[in-house]
């Protein structure tokens, strides 16, 4: 490098006068300078080529893979954030559900009087009003007692006898205007976290209004007594609506559902 500098300085300090004097100098020295300057040019070009090669290496071996890694990390962060958001949504859903259940537990009696008699509804929070059927289902799907029976049929029979067949189930001495002929209970099955027990009830209804009263007990109301609470869902009823003004033997096929821990 000092040699390069010397040659450069030498060449830079040249002027016409000095060229004249240089011309006067020996041809050998001139030739020597020319050769030296060519060497310097070649050297610089050589260095430049090497540097460019290094740059290319840096671009293709370091910058490009580095960019790839960076982009991969970026997309990994994106998907991780997506996962986090969905987990957050699950947590929010959980908290909302638990909040709803706590309110249902606290407002138990208000919910029952609102659904059964359309009273105290104004005392219920909006979320419970909006989810009143879910609240009803929740309150009715209690567990069965553990007995020697596969299903606690004591509870089923009691709920049929003391609640379902009553004309006004919320009065102590409510009358019935139909006849209960037979109850059949089949084996329980388990699915979606709940036990299902198929049950059929054969009854003779005096008229359509007594049938509708029975259906209301099944589909609408909630017994205030916790031991009578069972969630029933009617699957089919063989009732002739056209002859609804006459007494009819009717079979009602239902499923009852309960939750057991």
């Amino acid at each position: 490098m000092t040699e390069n500098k010397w040659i450069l300085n030498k060449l830079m300090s040249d002027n016409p006068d000095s060229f004249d004097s240089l011309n006067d100098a020996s041809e050998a020295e001139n030739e020597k300078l020319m050769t030296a300057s060519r060497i310097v040019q070649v050297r610089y070009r050589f260095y430049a080529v090497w540097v460019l090669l290094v740059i290319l290496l840096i671009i293709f071996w370091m910058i490009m893979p580095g960019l790839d890694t960076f982009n991969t990390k970026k997309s990994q962060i994106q998907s991780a954030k997506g996962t986090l958001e969905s987990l957050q949504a699950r947590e929010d859903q959980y908290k909302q559900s638990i909040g709803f259940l706590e309110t249902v537990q606290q407002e138990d009696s208000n919910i029952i009087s609102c659904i059964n008699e359309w009273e105290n509804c104004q005392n219920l929070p909006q979320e419970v009003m909006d989810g009143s059927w879910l609240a009803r289902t929740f309150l009715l799907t209690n567990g069965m007692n553990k007995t020697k029976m596969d299903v606690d049929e004591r509870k089923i029979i009691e709920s049929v006898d003391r609640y379902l067949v009553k004309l006004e189930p919320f009065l102590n001495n409510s009358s019935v205007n139909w006849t209960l002929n037979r109850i059949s209970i089949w084996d329980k099955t388990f699915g979606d976290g709940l036990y299902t027990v198929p049950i059929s009830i054969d009854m003779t209804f005096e008229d359509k209004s007594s049938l509708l009263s029975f259906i209301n007990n099944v589909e609408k109301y909630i017994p205030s007594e916790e031991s009578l609470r069972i969630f029933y869902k009617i699957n089919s009823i063989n009732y002739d609506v056209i002859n609804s003004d006459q007494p009819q033997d009717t079979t009602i096929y239902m499923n009852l559902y309960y939750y057991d821990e």
Partner: protein
Amino acid sequence: MAGSMNVKKISKSQKLFQASLGVLVLAVLIFAWIKWLTFVKNMELKHVNNRIEKKEEQLKIYESSTWYTKFLAVKSLQEKTAGMSRFYRIEKISEILEDLKNVDDWEWDTTIELSDFYVSLDEVSLRWVVSSLKDLYYTNVSWKMRAVLDRFESLEFIDKMVIKEYNRVNDWFEFSLYANVIDNDWK
């Protein structure tokens, strides 16, 4: 003259070299910058993954609680069993039946007889007896007479009425009418 040419060539080569050095420095800086960004992203990813791990553990505890599993089971049951209640279904069928029966309850009308009603929320059918085929299509407002087919057509809840055969039985015409029930709001 030759010296000045050489100077130009050397300074050109030197500039090329300096420029390439500048590009090299720039490339190194870009690489360092990308490395730094990757490092930052890596830290961010680690942080997010840690949060995911913690949240998953928390959710595992939450979602194994009895209350919540019962809630999910009840919610799925509620969704499965939602729909029109039997109470309203029977009420609606009664309404349809009454509307059908009222079709022959027409002033001056003693020549139409309806029977054998079948009513469901998807279709209705009934047997029909008329003394004259004219009763089916003839309408005279001033005589307060309205064609029986028009009366059925005016029922909003039925569609695609079909009568396949008209049979003569003694002095009467007998036939069966089938129609679809179209009100989907309460199905």
